[in-house]
């Protein structure tokens, strides 16, 4: 039995997991229409590669990955592409986003596909490519492209692979039931991951003790594999990446670092199943296990759901009573977000559709004043002071918020859960984070503008100074010439007096000098074509270097969600354009 560590804080909300595991994972009839959002992950949205009216087969690529941090999308079933347009998606703002709609034909006919069984003999690079091509992104939380996470372009080797089977949110049983029924394939997926990561020393499956059936199901499959199933007491939010790393290793992830920086890769257990399907069976990620639960549905259950299935389809088949409750949540009751309508589709990260009754989750009561009782601080898994953060968020004191480590808040909601005054604390933190990010961006912009203005001013002054200096020199030269001339005329035929003047040059000879200098400058400008080519090639090489660096920076920014993505992607675009310009110049020169 591996040792576990105890995180500070945490809460124990009613688990409500039993309702949805009374039956095995179910299969729904194929919905008439599937709506596949082009952005179901962190990073750039996929680019459609099909046209309206085109018929597609199940598993066919319908949108390709755009750039490094992106994933392709596949048709979840066969049919005809009936629309490529903006549709409502599962986002708390109720915004529209580009989607591909497929009208299914019911035949569900697969495109030709083939996996490989001897993954041990395939290079990790090739395996990662397979994972990327299968459109796999993290299925537990934020949806980070798995291929990027597994990419070996990092400082240190991975010594710990953590498989997150915690599923600490109440109600959700998608991972639990998947493990119960698919433990063998999941462990197979973990073995593939192990091969990709060059066999880390420790492979740990972290799971809470409220899933005894799942733990039992894993046991025979992990025997003799070196994979350990680590069971720890149930407490929300043990499944947070940072929390789980601490529980299993006793190490804290330094603020602002990624697990890979510390030699750890943390991956959701549902994702390992998808990786197995991708590598061994050659199937892209087109379905996932989703829990439909809550007292407003009569038949709570887990379904193997096609990506793109409208939520309404799931609700209808679960006998949803619209009158019973006021909200429908995608995700769990702690971190899930409410859906604007049931038309939105299931995406790769949708682990649960929760339709609670009013009795289960009543409408929020009006917030009472904060009395700083400190229950939130006792519940915070990151050891923050939520009551102070709330205070400073209200007052928009950004310096104080940063000093109180606002950005280490994982928005788990434990503070709001325990708050006796019903204050929506997390909402304040989200808003404050947004404000601070915006302020930072604006500061960067204004700093840039100020630098530019000052440089401009400096340059004008410099030019002015130079002009002034030239003028002075000319004036002096003229006066000198005049003086010489006067002296020469005065002396009449005196012996070569002009040659002896202190300037050492006659007016005529100084004019010749100026012309010669100008010619030399012009000649220098028109260097030989060889020189020019070499110079251009140098420029291209350095631009390529810069582009690469900018892209890396962008990937990093996206993975750490630092809010600089837009700015960095603009920078990448800029560099790319410059590179192309230089290349075309070079081509011209070659002609």
């Amino acid at each position, binding site marked *: 039995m591996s040792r576990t560590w105890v995180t500070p804080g945490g809460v124990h909300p009613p688990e409500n997991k039993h309702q949805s595991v009374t039956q095995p994972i179910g299969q729904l009839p194929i919905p008439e229409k599937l709506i596949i959002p082009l952005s179901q992950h962190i990073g750039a949205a996929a680019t459609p590669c099909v046209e309206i009216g085109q018929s597609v087969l199940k598993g066919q690529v319908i949108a390709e990955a755009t750039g490094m941090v992106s994933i392709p999308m596949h048709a979840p079933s066969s049919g005809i592409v009936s629309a490529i347009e903006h549709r409502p998606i599962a986002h708390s703002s109720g915004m529209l986003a580009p989607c591909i709609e497929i009208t299914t034909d019911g035949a569900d006919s697969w495109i030709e596909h083939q996996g490989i069984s001897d993954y041990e003999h395939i290079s990790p690079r090739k395996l990662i490519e397979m994972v990327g091509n299968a459109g796999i992104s993290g299925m537990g939380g934020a949806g980070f492209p798995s291929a990027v996470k597994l990419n070996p372009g990092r400082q240190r080797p991975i010594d710990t692979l953590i498989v997150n089977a915690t599923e600490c949110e109440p109600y959700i049983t998608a991972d639990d039931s998947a493990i119960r029924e698919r433990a063998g394939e999941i462990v197979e997926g973990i073995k593939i991951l192990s091969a990709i990561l060059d066999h880390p020393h420790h492979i740990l499956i972290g799971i809470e003790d409220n899933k005894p059936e799942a733990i039992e199901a894993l046991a025979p499959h992990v025997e003799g594999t070196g994979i350990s199933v680590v069971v720890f007491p149930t407490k929300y939010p043990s499944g947070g990446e940072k929390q789980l790393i601490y529980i299993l290793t006793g190490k804290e992830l330094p603020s602002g670092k990624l697990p890979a920086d510390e030699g750890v890769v943390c991956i959701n257990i549902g994702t390992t199943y998808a990786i197995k399907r991708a590598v061994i069976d050659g199937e892209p990620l087109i379905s996932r296990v989703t829990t439909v639960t809550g007292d407003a549905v009569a038949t709570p259950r887990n379904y193997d759901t096609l990506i793109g299935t409208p939520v309404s389809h799931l609700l209808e088949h679960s006998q949803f009573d619209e009158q019973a409750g006021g909200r429908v949540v995608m995700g769990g009751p702690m971190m899930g977000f*409410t859906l604007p309508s049931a038309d939105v589709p299931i995406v790769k990260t949708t682990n649960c559709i929760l339709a609670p009754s009013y009795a289960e989750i009543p409408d929020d009561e009006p917030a009472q004043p904060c*009395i700083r*009782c*400190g229950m939130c601080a006792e519940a915070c898994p990151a*050891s923050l002071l939520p009551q102070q953060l709330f205070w400073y968020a209200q007052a928009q004191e950004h310096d104080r918020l940063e000093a109180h480590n606002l950005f280490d808040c994982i928005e788990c909601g434990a503070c709001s859960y325990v708050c006796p005054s019903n204050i929506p604390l997390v909402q304040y933190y989200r808003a404050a984070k947004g404000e601070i990010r915006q302020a930072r961006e604006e500061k960067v912009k204004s700093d840039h503008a100020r630098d530019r203005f000052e440089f401009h001013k400096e340059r004008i002054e410099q030019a002015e100074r130079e002009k002034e200096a030239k003028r002075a020199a000319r004036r002096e030269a003229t006066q000198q010439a005049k003086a010489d001339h006067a002296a020469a005329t005065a002396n009449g035929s005196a012996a070569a007096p002009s040659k002896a003047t202190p300037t050492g040059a006659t007016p005529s000879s100084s004019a010749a000098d100026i012309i010669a200098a100008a010619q030399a400058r012009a000649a220098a400008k028109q260097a030989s074509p060889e020189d020019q080519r070499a110079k251009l090639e140098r420029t291209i090489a350095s631009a390529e270097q810069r582009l690469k660096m900018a892209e890396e920076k962008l990937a990093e920014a996206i993975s750490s969600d630092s809010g600089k993505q837009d700015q960095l992607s603009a920078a990448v675009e800029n560099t790319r354009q410059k590179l192309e310009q230089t290349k075309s110049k070079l081509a011209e020169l070659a002609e």
Partner: protein
Amino acid sequence: MAFKQVSSPHAHAAQNTSLVMKLVVLATIPGLLALTWQFGWGSFINVVLASVTAVCCEALIVKMRGRSISFYLGDYSAVVTAVLLGLALPPLAPWWIVVVGTVFSIVVAKQLYGGLGYNPFNPAMVGYVVLLISFPIQMTTWVAPLALLPVGTAHPGLIESLQIVFAGYSPADGVTGATPLDVFKHSSGLLVDQVYDREPLFNQAMFAGAGWEWVNLGFLLGGIILLSQRIFTWHGPVGMLGALALMSIIFWDSGSSSSPGSALMHLFSGASMMGAFFILTDPVSSAVSNRGRLLFGVLIGVLVYIIRAWGNYPDAVAFAVLLANFAAPFIDNYTLPRTYGHTDRRRATEKEED
């Protein structure tokens, strides 16, 4: 179909602020019972009178501020302040003492600062200190404990008590008397052992001071109940009682005539237990982090002892708490917890992490 849009988390624990406040009021019952048993009906009348006054004041101000009266009265915070003030005031004090104190607590110390959650000072203690400074005679006249009443007499009954409080009747001879802390203040020239031998307040007592030890035990019991319900953490009370005990051990002076008294006497006399569990645990005006609350408690314990031992007032919880309230924001700046993923604690005032 369109659904309701609400931000996460959706689940909430059953706890609410009104419940917390009600629990605090209920937890004062052992202390109130002990007070009533040992000192007669006076404290009970104080508590009721203060509560009625507080609720009226709160309602009036909330109405003047144009807020919902039922919503703001529903948090029971006015009642908590009133109950605590009522318990702290001397039993059988004239009615206007209670009313003036309560009005000051609720109107000035609480509502003028913005109401619940915004008051920098403990409202009950502000009311108490205003009274103590303005009406020292009424505020230092205490009823004698049960054991010390002259033979054959009893505390005035409820009706008689009401007459004393509202109609200004004088209580019978021997009903009023000094407190243990008074006795120690005025017993210079006697060894501690001599004080314990001679003073009926001590020779009639189990270990600290007749009557007072029961009252303090009552508040200790109520405090432990609140602790077990996780209404507050142990840091503040333990900090204060620990510091008070430590100070009295350090300056015990082997019981000489200049000794300010034993640790046991200080812990179970005056407002020690009530202060530790019901006054300094007011979260609004105290420090916020656990470490901060520990320091806050220690500061109060030290101040209580200093004022009791060398100051002009026999008890000092109210002054100590108010002084510590001043210090709370300062303490907060330097007692941030270490956040996950950071090597050190930060200061609230720093702009960049070192």
